[in-house]
């Protein structure tokens, strides 16, 4: 029977799998960037320039942001497993996720100078960061309400 604990376990496994995939992906970034430079259609302000080096730098930056997000998710899931849901630490995790997504989005926007297609990824990341920010605001209020409830005698 499917239950809350199994769902939590699945989320933790998926988080770890994503972390593993990110590590594997990191090894293929230089080769992938060179290949992308070769096959991609050059549309953008700096379209005539080689995209390999900026792409490697930005993708590694995005991987670093992805690790920040995964670490925050790991902490969040641990806290939820320990039945500590509405605590300020979880709000900080959501804030961290939001900023990491936004920063990755802005870096993708920079990459769009070389290849315009990355505007799409930038938009998606910034949009997701915004959604997480709103979620963080909701969570912040929930923490306050919980504390008020806990201190109502």
């Amino acid at each position: 029977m499917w239950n809350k604990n199994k769902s939590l376990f699945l989320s933790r496994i998926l988080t770890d799998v994503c972390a593993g995939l990110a590590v594997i992906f990191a090894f293929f970034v230089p080769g992938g960037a060179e290949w992308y430079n070769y096959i991609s259609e050059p549309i953008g302000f700096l379209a005539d320039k080689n995209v390999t080096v900026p792409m490697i730098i930005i993708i590694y930056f995005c991987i670093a942001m992805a690790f920040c997000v995964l670490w925050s998710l790991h902490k969040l899931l641990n806290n939820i497993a320990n039945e500590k849901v509405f605590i300020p630490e979880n709000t900080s995790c959501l804030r961290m996720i939001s900023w990491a997504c936004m920063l990755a989005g802005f870096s993708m926007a920079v990459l769009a100078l070389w290849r315009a297609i990355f505007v799409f990824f930038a938009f998606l990341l910034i949009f997701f960061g915004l959604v997480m920010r709103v979620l963080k605001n909701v969570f912040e209020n929930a923490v306050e309400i919980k504390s008020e409830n806990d201190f109502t005698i």
Partner: protein
Amino acid sequence: MPIIVNLDVMMAKRKISSMELAERIGITTANLSILKTGKAKAVRFSTLEKICEELDCQPGDILEFKKE
């Protein structure tokens, strides 16, 4: 917060211990301590009613408003 809880003063006047009062009004001593130390964010009318009943006092004897 400008609301001051004078529960400890009232308890001393009535010579009643925290444990005894907590037991009589049906809350934990930890919650009574939160109330006494002014850490509480709200008091239920039902709790206030029981406290007033046990200490034979008015809500104003327990709660005081002081401008900051």
